[in-house]
């Protein structure tokens, strides 16, 4: 090793020895630092290669995207048989909604984003005008999807199915359960005994009963209570049950938010001479809702996924459509493909909701971290 002398105080900043930094340095330190580590690395790489090769092969390269039946699929290649999805994508999306009328669903779905935009993004330009549309959207969508007005053909609820059914159940449940949940949370904190007792009873009952029981009540029991001949669509019954169930959970989440607000806030509101509604509107709710965003979103995602439970009362949500597809002798046995596809749909929707809630949390974050 050569030695070099420097005058005191004049040492230059030497670069680090080669091979200890940068890409190679990282690889050497982390993957090949010892013999055992090197062996592990090699084994892992081989394993990962075979795994990925097998999986991608099955998913893509060896997969069949169009065929008439499972038998034909197998003749073409031995990967996944996505033909069961491609041939039935209409059914997965719209259920048995008549093909000629499917534009109604498309329009409802697209305009749903316009209706939601001003609610979800407070900084939107022309927000006030769009809010008007949000207000009339539920009626607009109902008329369009259900029909029976303005020359639109009435569509039987038994034809509803697929992702459309999930979105209808999920979105209606989510939208209706939030306001009801807020009212219930406030009611539970109320000083008025009657309001408080009713809220507590409702919340505890709904939370104390499994959702699947409520669905059976909706599908079977209600029929016995109502006079014969009343045509109270099972879809409406199920939506009501979903809404009530989720509202009870939302109420508890929001109550947690309300109770997390320091007492000083209320005292300050009292000192300013605010009445109950003013306090609620300007002090309690803005803070409580902000605190409860993760909890609320959690409940929403749960509700959205729970919509698959309707399959037990014979409504054909994507899972039900998938099962029905598997019952077709042409596609019998392709359960992996079908369930993966349905799982993908739910993952995409739920992941989007979860990302939105993160965005909103960050946006509203005024806490001193």
């Amino acid at each position, binding site marked *: 090793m050569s030695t070099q002398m420097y005058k005191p105080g004049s040492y230059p900043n030497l670069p680090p020895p080669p091979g200890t930094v940068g890409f190679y340095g990282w690889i050497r330190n982390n993957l090949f630092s010892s013999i055992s580590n090197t062996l592990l690395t090699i084994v892992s790489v081989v394993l990962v290669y075979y795994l990925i090769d097998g999986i991608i092969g099955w998913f893509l390269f060896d997969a069949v995207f169009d065929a008439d039946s499972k038998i034909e699929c197998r003749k073409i290649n031995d990967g996944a048989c996505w033909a069961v999805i491609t041939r039935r994508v209409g059914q997965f999306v719209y259920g048995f909604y008549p093909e000629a009328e499917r534009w109604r669903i498309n329009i409802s779905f697209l305009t749903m984003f316009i209706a939601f935009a001003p609610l979800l993004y407070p900084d939107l330009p022309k927000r006030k005008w769009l809010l008007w549309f949000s207000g009339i959207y539920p009626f607009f969508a109902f008329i369009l999807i259900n029909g029976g007005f303005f020359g639109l053909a009435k569509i039987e609820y038994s034809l509803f199915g697929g992702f459309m059914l999930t979105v209808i159940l999920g979105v209606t449940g989510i939208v209706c359960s939030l306001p009801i949940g807020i009212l219930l949370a406030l009611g539970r904190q109320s000083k008025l005994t009657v309001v408080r007792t009713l809220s507590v009873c409702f919340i505890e009952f709904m939370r104390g009963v499994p959702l699947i029981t409520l669905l*059976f009540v909706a599908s079977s029991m209600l029929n016995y209570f109502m006079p014969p001949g009343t045509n109270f669509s099972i879809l409406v019954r199920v939506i009501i049950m979903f809404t009530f169930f989720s509202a009870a959970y939302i109420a508890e989440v929001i109550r947690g938010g309300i109770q997390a607000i320091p007492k000083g806030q209320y005292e300050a509101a009292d000192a300013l001479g605010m009445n109950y509604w003013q306090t609620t509107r300007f002090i309690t709710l803005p803070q409580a809702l902000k605190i409860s965003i993760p909890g609320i979103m959690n409940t929403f995602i749960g509700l959205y996924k729970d919509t698959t439970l309707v*399959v037990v009362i014979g409504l054909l949500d994507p899972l039900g459509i998938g099962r029905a*597809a598997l019952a077709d002798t042409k596609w*019998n046995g392709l359960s992996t493909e079908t369930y993966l596809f349905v799982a993908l749909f739910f993952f995409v929707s739920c992941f989007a909701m979860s990302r939105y809630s993160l965005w909103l949390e960050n946006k509203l974050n005024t806490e001193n971290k």
Partner: protein
Amino acid sequence: MKTKILLAAATAGVMFAGSVLASTLDDVRARGKLNCIINTGLAGFAAPDDKGKWTGFDVDFCRAVAAATLGDADKVNYTTATGKTRFTKLAAGEGEILSRNTTWTFSRDVDLSQTFVGVSYYDGQGFMVPKALGVKSAKGLDGASVCIQTGTTTELNLAEFFAGNGMKYNPVPIETNAEAQELYKAGRCDVYTTDASGLYATMSSFDNPADHMVLPEIVSKEPLGPVVRHGDDQWADIVAWTLKAMMAGEELGITSANVKSLAGKDNKNKEINRLLGKDPLQGISKLGLSADWAVNIIGQVGNYEEVFEKNLGMSTPLKIARGMNQLYRDGGLFYIPPIK
């Protein structure tokens, strides 16, 4: 006490009001569509095709009733029901017929106040094994591990069968048919047991169906058939005779292909004339049906043999043999009363 009486009176009133409403046939005619409750998906019995049209053995029966009552087999609304919800759906009036591979039992017939109008398919619990196992009879299954759906009558039948033959087995409990397929394919159980029709459906889903076989023993009675509500005998008769007309069609050699020509001429066999409306049956107007009801059924849907072969028979992947589901003259169990 008083409120109780009032409540009872109100209930009775509501129920009475329900029963004096128009007859089921009038309801169907007024609506222009038949509401039929079917399975959410069972291979060969009810499943939507790629176009979203329901097909299958049970579905075809709905179509036959629509053809008889409305003259058009396509005028059917299908409502899907699970095993748990089917009877309440029927009782609540969500459908006029329950055509959903439903086993006729005493308690269902009597206790649930329903009317089973006949048997359209004689099913029974069977055993499926890989041929490699080398078993030719269910009697040779001593010590086998058996995939069995929990909480079903099949579980009880299995225990009874093995106990009755002094054999032992290891149950592998499962929840759904799909789960059973996977476990059986993976070799976790030697035997899968459920209704024979279900076994054939499962087998048809395998990559190599020929490597498996259904053992000849059938260990339970599962007569499947359409169900209607109590209280409307006219409607029950219509549904019952729709089924019989399909079987009579097979017996008399009337098919969807030749029904039109047979209906147009005077046949030597007078029973054909009566069934097809040439010599109208006495009392057909009491059923509220037109004279060409059977022509519509067989012409638009087919006779029993055609429907069976189209949905379940040897030309389908299910490959179910007629077995008990034949006319008595061919060694089966269908014995139709005379069409007189």
